[in-house]
């Protein structure tokens, strides 16, 4: 009985469905409703109607029972129904009763239900509100937060005031998690009732001030949703957001970065000055701190990047290493839209890395790369092979890769790309093969060298077996021929022959058009083709018919004798065609070409109208105009403006007042500090990573440089002033002692003027951030030592008495210097400059080791060489280093060293202990909380290693650091010197690995001596390579800089412009090392190294090559 009934029912349902289907076919417009009904039907069909009802009754009973487990079970089933999209709203009264349940899981499930159905059952939903209000006061932050979450998710307009109150309260909650939830609630309330905007903005303003990384992302999201135009709210929080950025969770990072991109475009001036050349190469910017970079830019042009602008760029850069593809993409677009053109390149690698990710990620990234590669080929050219198509790629990925390859094509790589394209044409994926042919066409038009090759290749494809390939080739050939029609009648003839075999309408139309356009070049064939077409006219596609009429008209004008009748026949056929386009065209053509009384004046010009030379079509990228959208946005992806898309504004011509970003409160400047938990961070990591302190120290060191350098004090002063004005402005704002905006600008303009005065300034590497090891209150003991190493250069020869002091009694000497550094610059600057710089105690003038004199020094020295007392031959004297790019390396990390940390650098000075040793300076810092005793050097390996140790340091107080000098005989090999650094309790194995360039001492010689010596070191002793110089490195300054940064050699003054020579000796054996660089055309250069030490030569060659080629 039952069986019979159910079968009957299913039959009925089936009948119903067929009826529905037929109804659907009849009335397609009603489709959505019908399909819903149909869905309802299918539901009931899966569980018969009464059974379904009973099921809900069943659930209701379970909910009303006393047993928790039954209730839970019921709720689980209900949530299951919701998840499947089935309606269970009639259970609302039964469910809402359980909202106050003690069982947390049950409660959560009820919340889920409420959020889903409250909108539909508003009156009943109100019953639950009081529960949430109570929960908002719960001592458990988790419960407060989830209550707010649900309360704000209930989209019932009546409770808007309650929500508003709850949000305001939660925004002031002690728990950052609750505050985060309130930020989310703001958006919900806003979408529910936009009238609350003003009040909500107040809350947003308050939350923006929040220092918790947890809140930052969510509140910026709320800001973007509620009041994206209230840019003024951001000013005060800009620096904080920049500094917090690395610690914010990844989703928040994306939102903040995109907001900051918009902000920066309204607040800063454009860094893209046209025609500006950059001496700087990009790799370097990666490692250098920004103040130096700023200087270099300002050197090239009067544009000065706002320090806040730089702050943003600097703080987003580490995020390129994020695992979250959205973060990487948003940093990439930030650089694209905000960074100076030459800095954008750093995002390339990361973007290419994203191509390893999921298919969908690839799709979006490729779209963006396609847009970027149109404007900046150079960015992605080195990664061309990453865009090679794999047969497993999805079609849209393939097409995008093809697009990018085409964009990247240039004279140099076109042959590789074309070879690649040849394999693509053979692809099984026909749409892709067709796209490839289009791409070949584009390459052919863009690069005139290969037009003929491409054309020949395409003609070969005409005999391909596959129709789509042939058709596409025809279309592309047509376009190509148009660009240079003169010599290609052969190809047109060939195509005419193929005509019978081609069935694709577009291709047929293209051939006909070609015939007509160039009918004078194929006078015999064209009429014949027309004859054939007349026969098949009625069977052709519309597009082909139009071209037949066209061809007929053109032939009639050029060769009326042969084609008059044919033309008339075709025009007659066209007159009665079904398609009105064709009828129109026919009528028009007839009036135009066939002279009669009505046609009038136009007739005379028929020939000029129809056979006018036509401009060749420009084949360009489909991504050509995509750059009107901000990269990485949805609008960019769909190539049309999405709802809520906000245009990126153009740079303002004049930057708005920058003092608005100054804040009163002291902001802790956080760098990409390891996320260890707050206490730890502030304790140990700040020291290593905080740029701020480092800057201070650098400044301190520079000031000591000033004091030492008497000869160049004028210049270095002007520099340090400029620097300090920039620095102090920045740091002062950072530390909150706000200097007024007017003052900023005045000091800035002044520094600008100063810059103009400057004639030449050797770029100078600043020590890496890690160099700053000591604490800020110490004002840079370590760096003082560094500076003392480089300051002698600036004083050109009158060197190192202070150094000598420090050797014998380093601590005392440094103490002295420290005090000097503190007092002197203050006096100097104050006397020279009227601008009151507030924080001179902490921020003394900037870190320029008077690099200007660095080149002078070597020549000066050679002038003075007669005075030298050294016993080395006077022609080739080992000089003091002419350049001091101090790179600091880590010797011992404080984690490994149980609080003792050590860093070392090569001061590039002759070692005082033994001439065959390389001088090494080690900075020891005690980061532990107890003092360390008896720091000395223990065992060493290899056993014969000759080390001059520093004297045992009896005691190192916590947070103190000391710099000691050592000498190590590396015996001219880069083998690491291993030794043990011992304290009273512990021993740590450490090793110093010298770069090959550090094993040299510069030597001064004349050009003649250089050539003479070079003549002795030929054959086996000569190593050379042709390198392609990065464009940034072609100036002689840049070359010297790069070479000197790699190796400690001396510049040999050269009479020829295209020759650069450098000379040095190995420290240990004194073997001569001669480096010469001969510049040739187009940035290639011959790099030659002559020395007996062939191993060193090859290593040095590699290093130099790397330094000179990187761009």
């Amino acid at each position, binding site marked *: 009985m039952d069986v019979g009934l159910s079968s009957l029912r299913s039959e009925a349902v089936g009948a119903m469905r067929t009826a529905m289907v037929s109804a659907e076919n009849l009335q397609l417009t009603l489709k959505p409703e019908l399909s819903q009904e149909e869905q309802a039907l299918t539901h009931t069909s899966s569980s018969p109607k009464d059974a379904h009802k009973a099921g809900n009754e069943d659930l209701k009973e379970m909910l009303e029972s006393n047993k928790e487990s039954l209730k839970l079970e019921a709720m689980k089933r209900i949530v299951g129904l919701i998840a499947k999209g089935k309606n269970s709203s009639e259970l609302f009264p039964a469910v809402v009763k359980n909202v106050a349940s003690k069982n947390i899981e049950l409660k959560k499930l009820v919340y889920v239900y409420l959020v889903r159905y409250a909108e539909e059952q508003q009156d009943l939903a109100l019953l639950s509100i009081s529960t949430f209000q109570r929960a908002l006061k719960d001592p458990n932050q988790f419960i407060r937060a989830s209550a707010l979450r649900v309360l704000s998710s209930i989209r019932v307009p009546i409770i808007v005031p309650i929500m508003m109150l709850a949000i305001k309260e939660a925004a002031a909650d002690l728990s950052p998690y609750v505050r985060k939830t309130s930020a989310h609630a703001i958006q919900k309330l806003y979408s529910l009732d936009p009238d609350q905007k003003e009040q909500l903005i107040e809350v947003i303003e308050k939350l923006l001030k929040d220092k918790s990384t947890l809140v930052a992302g969510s509140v910026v999201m709320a800001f973007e949703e509620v009041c994206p135009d209230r840019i003024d709210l951001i000013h005060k929080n800009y620096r904080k957001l920049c500094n917090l950025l690395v610690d914010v969770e990844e989703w928040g990072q994306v939102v903040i970065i995109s907001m900051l991109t918009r902000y920066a475009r309204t607040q800063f001036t454009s860094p893209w000055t046209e025609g500006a050349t950059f001496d700087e190469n990009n790799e370097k910017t990666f490692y250098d701190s920004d103040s130096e970079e700023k200087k270099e830019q300002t050197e090239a042009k009067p544009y000065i990047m706002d320090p806040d602008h730089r702050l943003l760029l600097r703080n987003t850069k580490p995020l390129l290493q994020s695992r979250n593809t959205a973060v990487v993409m948003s940093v990439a677009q930030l650089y694209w839209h905000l960074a100076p053109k030459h800095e954008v390149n750093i995002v390339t690698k990361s973007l290419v890395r994203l191509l390893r990710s999921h298919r969908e990620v690839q799709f979006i990234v490729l779209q963006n790369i396609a847009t970027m590669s149109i404007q900046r080929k150079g960015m992605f050219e080195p990664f061309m092979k990453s865009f090679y198509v794999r047969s497993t790629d999805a079609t849209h990925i393939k097409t995008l890769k093809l697009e990018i390859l085409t964009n990247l094509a240039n004279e140099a790589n076109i042959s590789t790309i074309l070879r690649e394209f040849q394999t693509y044409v053979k692809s099984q994926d026909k749409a892709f093969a067709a796209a490839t042919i289009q791409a070949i066409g584009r390459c052919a038009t863009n690069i005139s060298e290969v037009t003929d090759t491409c054309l020949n290749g395409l003609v070969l494809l005409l005999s391909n077996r596959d129709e789509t390939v042939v058709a596409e080739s025809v279309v592309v050939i047509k376009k190509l021929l148009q660009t240079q029609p003169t010599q290609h009648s052969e190809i047109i003839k060939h195509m005419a022959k193929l005509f019978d075999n081609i069935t694709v309408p577009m291709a047929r139309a293209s051939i006909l058009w070609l015939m007509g356009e160039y009918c004078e070049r194929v006078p015999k064939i064209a009429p014949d083709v027309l004859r054939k077409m007349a026969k098949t006219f009625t069977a052709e596609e519309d597009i082909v018919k139009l071209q037949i009429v066209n061809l007929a008209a053109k032939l009639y004008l050029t060769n009326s004798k042969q084609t008059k009748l044919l033309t008339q026949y075709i025009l007659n056929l066209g007159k009665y065609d079904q398609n009105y386009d064709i009828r129109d065209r026919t009528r028009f053509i007839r009036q135009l070409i066939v002279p009669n009384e009505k046609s009038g004046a136009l007739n005379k010009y028929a020939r000029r109208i129809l056979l006018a030379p036509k401009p060749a079509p420009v084949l360009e990228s489909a991504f050509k105009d995509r750059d009107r959208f901000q990269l990485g*946005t949805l*609008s960019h992806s769909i190539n049309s403006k*999405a709802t809520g898309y906000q245009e990126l504004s153009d740079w303002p011509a004049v930057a708005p007042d920058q003092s608005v970003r100054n804040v009163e409160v002291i902001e802790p400047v956080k760098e990409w500090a*390891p996320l260890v938990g707050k206490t730890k961070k502030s304790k140990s990591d700040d020291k290593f990573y905080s740029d701020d302190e480092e800057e201070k120290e650098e400044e301190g060191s520079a000031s000591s440089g000033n004091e030492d350098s008497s000869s160049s004090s004028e210049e270095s002063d002007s520099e340090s002033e400029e620097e300090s004005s920039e620095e102090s402005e920045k740091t002062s704002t950072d530390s909150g002692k706000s200097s007024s905006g007017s003052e900023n600008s005045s000091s800035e303009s002044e520094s600008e003027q100063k810059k103009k005065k400057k004639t030449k300034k050797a770029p100078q590497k600043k020590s890496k951030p890690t160099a700053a090891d000591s604490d800020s209150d110490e004002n840079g003991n370590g760096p003082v030592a560094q500076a003392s190493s480089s300051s002698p250069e600036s004083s050109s020869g009158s060197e190192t008495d202070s150094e000598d002091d420090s050797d014998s009694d380093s601590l005392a000497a440094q103490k002295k210097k420290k005090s000097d550094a503190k007092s002197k610059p203050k006096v100097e600057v104050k006397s020279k400059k009227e601008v009151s710089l507030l924080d001179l105690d902490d921020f003394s003038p900037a870190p320029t080791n008077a690099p200007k004199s660095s080149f002078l020094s070597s020549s000066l020295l050679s002038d003075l060489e007669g005075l030298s007392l050294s016993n080395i031959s006077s022609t080739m004297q080992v000089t003091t280093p002419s350049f001091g790019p101090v790179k600091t390396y880590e010797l011992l990390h404080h984690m490994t060293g149980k609080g003792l940390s050590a860093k070392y650098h090569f001061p590039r000075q002759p070692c005082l202990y033994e001439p065959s040793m390389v001088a090494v300076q080690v900075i020891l810092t005690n980061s532990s909380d107890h003092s360390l005793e008896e720091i000395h050097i223990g065992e060493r390996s290899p056993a014969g290693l000759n080390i001059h140790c520093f004297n045992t340091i009896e005691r190192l107080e916590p947070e103190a650091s000391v710099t000691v000098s050592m000498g190590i005989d590396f015996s001219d090999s880069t083998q690491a010197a291993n030794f043990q650094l011992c304290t009273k309790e512990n021993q740590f194995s450490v090793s110093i690995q010298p770069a090959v360039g550090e094993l040299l001492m510069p030597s001064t010689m004349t050009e003649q001596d250089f050539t003479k010596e070079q003549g002795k070191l030929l054959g086996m002793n000569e190593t050379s390579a042709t390198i392609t110089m990065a464009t940034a490195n072609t100036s002689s300054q840049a070359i010297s800089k790069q070479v000197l940064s790699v190796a400690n050699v001396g510049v040999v003054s050269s009479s020829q412009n295209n020759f650069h020579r450098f000379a040095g000796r190995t420290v240990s054996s004194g073997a001569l090392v001669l480096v010469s660089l001969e510049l040739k055309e187009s940035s290639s250069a011959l790099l030659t190294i002559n020395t007996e030490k062939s191993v060193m030569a090859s290593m040095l060659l590699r290093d130099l090559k790397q330094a000179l080629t990187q761009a």
Partner: protein
Amino acid sequence: MIHSLFLINHSGDIFLEKHWKSVISRSVCDYFFEAREKAVDPENVPPVLQTPHHYLISIYRGKLFFLSVIQTEVAPLFVIEFLHRVADTIQDYFGECSEGIIKDNIVTVYELLEEMLDNGFPLATESNVLKEMIRPPTILRSVVNTLTGSSNVGDTLPTGQLSNVPWRRAGVKYTNNEAYFDVIEEIDAILDKSGTTVFAEIQGVIEACVRLTGMPDLTLSFMNPRLLDDVSFHPCVRFKRWESERVLSFIPPDGNFTLMNYHVSSQNLVAIPVYVKQSISFFETGPCGRLDITIGPKQTMGKTVENMMVTIHMPKAVLNANLTATQGTYTYDLTTKVLVWDIGKLNPQKLPNLRGSLSTQLAISGNPRYIMTLKLSQLMLVDCLKVSRLDMYGEKYKPFKGVKYLTKAGKFQVRT
């Protein structure tokens, strides 16, 4: 941001829907189905679709579509990345991400989705945090739950949510403390017809399985960090330390995670460990063709090549394959036109060879595509990253440490 999510199976049924704002009718998916039909292959469905009122962003994972509905401008990668994170989380919780598993755990999945997004903005996506809020089902727990009536839902705020180490849960305890690292390097290569390398690069990943008590602070250092060209890290890695010292210093999440991805910079060409000689031809005259493939070792430096497998995507016209393999077995799937040759271990003395005839329809177009997968265990390529040591700070006990190296074929493909 993300408005709604629909999970759609291979045959086009919506089996889960979740709305974070007001409810959107599932009829919005019709636009997607249309595109799905047009694309033929599910891989070819465009990830971003525009409809009159909404934007649809979808991903395809494990034969499932995750379709999200967007109403306003948002970075598409943001959504895509999140959807993949959802799929990852489901996989992490239940071992796999398939329709069956999701249907079986529909309530848990729904609760997870509820926690992961708030009003369309990601709230908690770290698996360590989520696992504290919603405990993953285990057999033992489900038994206990049914007996005692306790729940899967945690009642306290996960500590990770508040701390600066959001990826690690607090109070982790193990009796056996262990930390394992798998250094997996994949060779991506394209070989052309004659066997010359068109493109080759090595991509590496360090997968970690760390089960350590408390809050350990690990430092992983490498023998040859210079090899690393481009890296991306799990958020736990301290970037500054990496910049200055080239060591990975981190407080690990609990359990399995990907520590870093890297790209190996190689000045010279990547050495491909095997070579392939292949010839495949279809006769113009008759309905058949011939296939001949030989694989031999090249530059393996004495290591054995294991788990060799060759996959050939035949043109649609190939009806059947009648082949003989000197080693291993082959299967030809008639519906998908995929020939799989499972070779196993490569024997350098007797090179594996597969040859025979193919029967085809008359009209044949296009060439087959080859995809090879192979695995070289313990094989050290010239440019292999090597771990030098792992140090632990912050905890007293001595953990058990292990590193495994593995080189395998990534997207390894031979062109025809």
